[in-house]
Each structure stands twice: as C-alpha cells, then as structure tokens.
C-alpha cells in the first residue's frame, strides 16, 4: 500500500488545527511583554523538530515498540532518579521543584514528560503479556494483573512525588486508570476500586477543609500545601496568595464573554500566560466561541483516538492509544478546568497549545505512536476480514 493510504490524514489535519490554535494563543499571550522573547517562533521550531521525530517513528511498527518498552521504562526511571542525585548545575531547583536537566548549549529537558510515554508503553506491554498468557478470566488473574500494573506505576510515581510534582503524579494515575479500564479486569473489581479512589479523593478535600490538623497529624501534610484547595473554593479570601492566579484567570476568561476581545485586546495581566494559563488568554481574546472551538478540536482528537483503538488489531496498540488518550484527555480537562474554577490549580500545561519544549515534544512523540499504529495496520487488515476506509 502506498504511503498516502497508510498515513493517518485525519490525525494530521487535527494536529494542523492545534498548531494554528497554539500560534494564535501564544502570540496573544506574549503581548504582555513579561519576557522579551518570541515564543511563537520557538514553539514552531519545536513543532518542526517533533514532526521530524514523528517521521522517524513511522519506521517502527507497534511490535517493535513493545519490545523496547521495558528498556525505555528503565531508562526513564534512571533519568528521574538521576534528578535526585545530580549536582545543582545539572539539575537546578526551579520554582521549588527539581524537575529539569540543564543540557549546556541545548537548553533544559524535563524527564517526567517523557516518563509519561514510557509508562504508557510499559503498562500496555504488561497488560498485553498478561492477557496473552492467562488461561481463564477469573478473579485471581485480574487481581494479579492489577497488582502488576500498580507495581509498574509505583516507582515513577514515587520519584515524581519527591520532586515534588503533583500535576504529573495525577497524570500517571490517570494513565493507570485509563489502561485499567480497557485491560479486561472485571467490572466487579473496577467499580469498587474506582469508587474507593473517588471516595478517598473527596474525603481528602473534605478533611482539608474541615480538619486540616488531622491531615497534618497522620499524613504529614502541612497546611500551606492545602492552600491550592482553599484558594480553589474561596479565591477571594486568598487573593494575595494562592487565589491570585484563579481570580485573574476567571476575570480574563469571563470578560471575554461570547465573542472575545480580539487579538491583542487582552486587559488582564497574567504571569506565565504563555504556558500553564494559556487558556485564560484564549478565553479573553477569543471568547466563548473560540474556547469552544479549542475544546471541540480536542474532543475530535479524543474521538479519533477511540476510533483507532477500536480498529487496531493488535491489543498492544489499543492499550497504547488508550493510554495516550487518557494522558491527553486528563491534561486538557485538568488544565482548562483549573482556569475556570472547576478544579484546583496544578502546574499542568495544555497539550499542543501551551509553550514548552519538553512537554510539546513528549506529546508529539505520543502522537507519533498513534501515527505509527495507523501506519502499520495494513499487515493484519485482511485477517480482520474488513477493509479500512
């Protein structure tokens, strides 16, 4: 089959739409002049770099990715662990976290971004292998699978919490949740576990509000660490500290109203609006309509990923695509949600839109995996007995 037929053109056009949105949004954000840097051009350079990488990724088929997933996973763990022991010049403390490697002459990379991909590959491999070997679908086998998956997630999760980086830790959990859902574990296990997890989450928030001293006593959570939750629920009470960003963001997005203020019409100054708070700028300058276009574009991407997971005739491919879908979906929901007070603020960028080299590159690698899945599908197509479009 020819390249034109194997290439996923739909995904390609969705990505083009995201590039365009990213350029508009970053251009709008950098008008504040917080930094004297043209981030839009830099973002395009990163996109160019990522495109080349995707091109190379098409050369390997999913089977090959499965073979290297264990090594990538170990490599990622070593990188994360390295952050803890690396000297300060190599891994400096930024904004209270040790999440970056400085590579002289090149810039900085954030290994946790790439760990997300490695984790998706590793989890998919574990599930695929388990399901291949097991004889019958019984409770014991399901518990065993769950155990394996949790074991895979714990090391990176632990290292991330050391940095500390709550946002990325939540992304790991989202990937785990998504993969578990499609792994074939019986509903009678999944429902209680998800239920328990949700209950735990809600009760932690409730405790934080009602009895923070208990959290301090039993979980060693300092009160200031709960500031984000307080600020989320009562931003005006904490206007000078944790509530500051939320109030500014709500004011920016709200005042955009239906049609927005147009390019460069922003009135609210938000620090770092080209990265984590890029959606506030979109909301203010492009209004409800523009915001919905962005959300719908992501929704179409999600839909497309589900389609690919459906059609993939190699279980590993489906799991990888579901892992990627969980990761991007959670990023989008958490990032946009925090700008409109739906969720507390965590430092998570909006995929493909926010400025940021490592995060963008990692997301493009994820998309590269999806491209590769689609690209190598033909081998088994006739086994399926149906033709792709």
């Amino acid at each position: 089959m020819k390249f034109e037929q194997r290439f996923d053109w739909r995904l390609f056009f969705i990505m083009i739409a995201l590039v365009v949105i990213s350029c508009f949004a970053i251009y709008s954000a950098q008008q504040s002049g917080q930094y004297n840097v043209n981030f839009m051009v830099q973002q395009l350079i990163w996109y160019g770099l990522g495109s080349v990488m995707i091109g190379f990724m098409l050369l390997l088929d999913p089977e090959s990715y499965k073979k290297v997933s264990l090594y990538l996973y170990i490599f990622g763990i070593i990188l994360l662990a390295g952050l803890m022991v690396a000297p300060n010049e190599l891994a400096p403390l930024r904004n209270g976290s040790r999440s970056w490697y400085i590579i002289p002459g090149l810039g900085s990379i954030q290994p946790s971004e790439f760990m997300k991909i490695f984790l998706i590959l590793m989890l998919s491999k574990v599930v695929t292998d388990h399901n291949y070997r097991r004889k019958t679908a019984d409770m014991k086998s399901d518990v065993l699978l769950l155990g394996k998956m949790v074991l895979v997630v714990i090391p990176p999760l632990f290292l991330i919490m050391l940095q500390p980086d709550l946002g990325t830790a939540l992304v790991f959990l989202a990937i785990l949740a998504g993969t578990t859902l499609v792994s074939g574990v019986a509903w009678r296990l999944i429902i209680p576990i998800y239920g328990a997890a949700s209950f735990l989450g809600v009760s932690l928030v409730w405790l934080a509000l009602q009895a923070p001293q208990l959290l301090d006593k039993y979980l060693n959570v300092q009160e200031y660490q709960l500031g984000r939750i307080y600020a989320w629920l009562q931003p005006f009470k904490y206007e000078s500290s944790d509530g500051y960003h939320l109030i500014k963001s709500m004011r920016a997005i709200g005042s955009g109203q239906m049609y927005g203020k147009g390019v460069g019409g922003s009135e609210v100054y938000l620090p770092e609006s080209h990265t984590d708070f890029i959606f506030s700028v979109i909301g203010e300058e492009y209004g409800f309509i523009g915001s919905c276009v962005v959300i719908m574009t992501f929704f179409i991407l999600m839909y497309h990923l589900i389609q690919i997971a459906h059609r993939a005739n190699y279980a590993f491919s489906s799991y990888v695509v579901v892992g990627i879908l969980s990761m991007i979906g959670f990023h989008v929901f958490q990032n946009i949600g925090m700008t409109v007070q739906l969720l507390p603020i965590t430092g998570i960028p909006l995929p493909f839109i926010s400025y940021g080299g490592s995060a963008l590159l990692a997301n493009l690698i994820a998309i590269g995996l999806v491209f590769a899945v689609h690209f190598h599908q033909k081998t088994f197509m006739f086994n399926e007995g149906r033709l792709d479009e």
Partner: protein
Amino acid sequence: MGNKKNNERKKKTHLPFRLNVLFFIIFLLFASLILQLGVVQILNGEEAQEEIDKTENQTTALPVPRGKMYDRYGRLLVDNQSLYSITYTPPKGVQAEDRLDLAKKLSQYIDKEFEDELRLRDLKEYFYLENQKEVQNRIDQEEAEDLEPGEVYQLELDSIKESEVNDYDNQTKEVIAIKKELDKAYALSPQIVKNENVTQKEYAVVGEHLNELPGIDVTSDWKREYPMGDTLSSFLGGITDRSIPRSKMEYYLSLGYSRSDRVGNSGLEEEYEDVLRGTKEKVQYTTDSDNNIVDTEVIREGERGDDLVLTFDSELQKRVNEIVRTELTKEVQRSYKNRHMEDALVVMSDPQTGEILAASGMHYNRDPDEDEQRVSNVSHKVLYDQYPPGSAIKGASVLTGLHTGVVSPGEYIYDRPLNIKGTETKSSYSQLGSVNALSALERSSNVYMFFIAMRMMGNPTFQENAPLSLEPGTFQRMLKHFHQFGLGVETGIDYPYEAPGVQGSNPGPGNLMDFMIGQYSSYTPMQLNQYVTTIANDGYRVRPHFMKEVRQPSKGDKKLGPVNSSFNTDVMNRVVMSNQYIDLVQNGFRQAFQGSQGTATSTFYPTNGENVSYSPAGKTGTAEASKLLDNGELFTELENLTLVGYAPHDDPEVAFSVMVPYVGKDLPMGGDKAINLRIGRQILDAYFELKEEREESGVDSDVTGSNNANNEDG
C-alpha cells in the same frame, strides 16, 4: 507471529464496550468544561468586565542606566553619573497649611538653597500661615466683607510689617524656600522640589521617610560622564538627549523604545546600542476611578545595559595624543609653507588580533572660537578622511608584481627617469640605479613600481618616448590584489561609519603607474593600518576592532562583571601571494627602517647613537598633494607624509600608520626629521616604554589624572 497476534486479538473482545465507556467519560468531562465556560463567560461575563472596568491598567517601562565602557585594562572611559531628584505630586484638595507642614518635615531631611530665592512676599505668606488668627484680626471685618477673598488676603499681607519677618533664622528661611517649591505644584503632576546637588544621603533619608511625606517621591536618573575627558571621546560617540532620532523613529519604536529614550547616535554608543541599552523594567499600575494607584505589579525586572571593554590602551592613547598634538603644533608653526596643514592622524593596533590600541587625530585650528582650543581631538578622522599615501603602499605593489609574475625576486631594474609619450617624465626622487625587489622597497624606488604597472598593462619591454598600450581590465586586476590588503575596501571595523577610500575611475596608463606608487587612489589611516598589519601577519588580513569584550553589569562598585561575549580575532582573508614573496617584502620593510640606505633608518638608528632596541620594520611615503582652498584656488605645493610599520620585525606586537596631509613642499628641515618620521619614532618609543614600565611595576590602573610626564618633545 501472526498466530500470536491473532491470539492477542481474540483476548480483547471486551475492548469495544470498554472503549465506549471511556469515550462516554471523556464526553462527560468535556461537556462539563463547556458548561462551566458558559457559566463563567456568558452568565458571569459582564460582571467580570465590570470588575476590570472599575480599575484601569497602565503599563510603564522605566528606563535603566546604560552600560559603561572601559579600556582594555578595565579603566573607566564612560560612566553614568547618578542624578537624584526629589519630587512632589500633590493629592487633590491640599491646603497651604498641609504644604507648610510638609515643608517643615522635609527641611529636616534636605538642605535647600534659600539665598536670593526668597522675596518679601514669601516671608509674609509664611508669617501669615503661622499667625493666621492674629493677622486676620488686624483687618477691619466690616470692610473685608465687601471685598473679594484675594483682596482680603492682600490686605492681610500688607498689614504684616517688614520688621516682623526680617529676623527669621536660616532654618525658617529654608522651610520657606521649600514651601515655595511645593506651592508651584499642580494637583497630580510631579514637581521637582530639588534635583541639583541632591546627595546620596538626602536621597536615602527622604526615601526612608516617604510614608510621613505625602506626595513626596524620590527618583533617580543618570547622565554620561567621561572620566578621561576627551582622550577618546571622538570614538566613544554620543547619545541623544531624551528623544529617539526622528529619522529612525519607526525602527526604534519597533524595538520597544519609547519616544523619550536616549539612544546612541554616533560612534561606539551607536554601534553597540543593543548591548548598552539594557532591559527596561516593565511595571503595570492599576488605578481606580479616583486615579489612586491600587496595585503596582512588576511585570519584568529591569537590568542595566551590559558594559563594553574596549581594545584601547588609554594610557598609550594619552601619550600618543600628546605626541601628535605637540608635533602638529610645532610643524604648523615652524614654516609659512605649512599654512595649509591642519591634521595629523595615527592608528596603532595589535597586528595579531586586530585590536586597536590607540587611534589619534589632531586638528589645528587657525582661528579658534572662544571656547575652542588651538588643537582639537578629531580621532574619528582616522576612519573618515582619506588621502593618497604615496610610497607607503609599495609593499602591496611589489607583492602584486611578484604574484602576477611581471617581476621576479632576483630581477634588477635600472632606476632612471622614464620618458613616455603622452605623460610627463616619471622618476624616483633621485636616480637610484639598479634596484631589485628588496632594494626597491628599502630605497623607495618609483621606477621599479612603474615597471610593474607597465608590464601589467601589457608592455613587456620599455621603449623610450613610445606611447604605452593598456590592456582592458588592468586596473581591475590591480585593485583585486590591493583589496586583499584592505586598500580600497572597508576594513570591516566595528564602527557605524568608515570611508572606503577613493579609487578613481577610468584611469589612463600614467594614472596606473601612479597607482602603484600610491599617488592615485586615496586611503584612510585605518586602511593603511590594516594593510601593514596584513604584511606583518604573513598575509593574514584581520578585522580591526574597538570592542574587546561585553561584560554583564557588575554587582559590586568597581569590579567588572562576568564576560558575556568577546570579540574573537577575525581573519577576513589570506592574500594570494606566496609566503616566499611576503618574506621578501617583510625584509624590504626591515631594510627601509634598518638598512644602510633605508628611507627611515636615520630616524630609528640615528648617527648620534640613540638607536631603538625594538627592531622596527615598515615603509615611508610621500605623495604630492593639492588642496582646494576656500577661494577656489588649487594649491599644489603640498605633500602628504605617511609612515606605516610594525615592531619587532620578526614577531610583531604593534602595527601603526601615520598620516599627515598637506605638509608644505621643500620645507627647510633645519636638522629635523620630517613629521611623519618624528611621530612614528615617538609612538613606537611610547609603546615600548609603557611595556617596560608595566613589566617593572604592573599596569597603572588609574590614569585619569594628567600623566604627560613621559612625553618627549621633538
């Protein structure tokens, strides 16, 4: 493998349903986002806009001080002098009593000049405020009722006797003087209370007590200061006075300047504007409807501009300036024949790096204005002014001849006057007899160069009294060779302007012969310096430069900050001539300065035994010159005297060019050397003396004071 995959595929029958569940969850999450957006933007949107409208944001960029400039040894050349000022911005509805209170408080912290500042009325107004009740009682109340308030006030002031206010002490007078400044202020616009001679202490103390001084503020500003006076001012350039140049308005505005910014508009200030300007501090003020500032937010921290470390050795520069000044004055004054002479120009550089160590240009003012000195510093002329240099460029001529093969190293040419049809007789300054490439340079033979020119033109043999043929393209071939030395092209120096030299167009055979002896095209002293540097460097042409390093602003008071970037030695090209030929020319240059028949030997190795120890090499030059006088007459009894060279001959560490245009012809020398030779000898002496002094006692870090003790005259 297919079988394995088939197995794996069979095991995922649960997948389609689970995927649908997952998609449904995603749908719910995204739907909730849109729902919440609807609430925030459509339901509560207007409220948010009202919230913003209540306040107004204004972003201001605060200027930061410009970067400083240092010489190669870290001696300050351009500094910023801080200017402090204390301002008063009155809130609305302030009464005279409030201002008096403020003046009293302020007088504790600042000194204010009051002599000659105060009128009687000022004193009376003060008396009135202090004794309001009593003064009001002096006026007939019934009479006052019919009058305007202003008239009443005047009456009240009139009732105060001079004797009542005459014996105020100095302290009180100071308060009155301050109050007078405060009274001048309009509501909400800043008025300068004191900006001259505000000491650092006053600035700090007032700054500390701002909370008890409503409306008072302290600001700082700066102006350029030149600790070494005009030693280098000609190169350092200037900056605009609180405006960007109108002609480049759009350009600067697009770079984020504001209309009242100061930018470099000449010299190195202009060349390195982007380095020196720094990053402005950007502040957003949020004001409410009453114009009160409710929030100040620093969007971007400002940073002072980076510092420039220049290649100049300011101590050497001072000495060279003095040598050039002295010799120019002496030369102009010694003979009527020198009545059209006005400039003397010198460039000294490190040939291996292209660093300019000193560059001096002096101008003799025959009719100085009142505030003008007799001799003024016009150093920039070494880049701007161009003259035919005469024989100094013969190194390039010989190399061109050798490389094109029209002469060979061993060939002798008989130097005698040449008669050519169509041009006047062409000769050297005297009949030199047989010369080869080496002695042609040592003794400065013109005829040898004429033969190179004639043969390049297509005349392999010389015929007395015959016309010369001229192959098309000869001039271009000559230029191509000369350009490799920087003669006739820009030197590439880091400066906003440099003259490229004048090449002349459509030359005839006679012109091309003159070209080879430096009598046709014109060059700047900087070009001559690059040319001799190229020969000193075994044929490598390096880019001359003034900037040595860019350094970040230092944190402390005096020391330089860390290096941001440095100017690396830039080899622009290697001349095409072989090493063997370059060696030969270097030898010829050495002979010219040291050989028994050398044209400059008697200067550096005089018969009285004052020999130099640094083994110089180089070439003298004399060009016939003519000057168009103010009255339209072309005055021809003039010569341009030049000298180029380097030392020591085997490992050059300094290269120089000297150019003195419009010296009178056939001067009575009276035992003296010509001015180009005198200057050449002294600047080389100065360089090596300084080097010796420094080897003994290190680099003198402070040369701001007068340091002319080491200058020798004549």
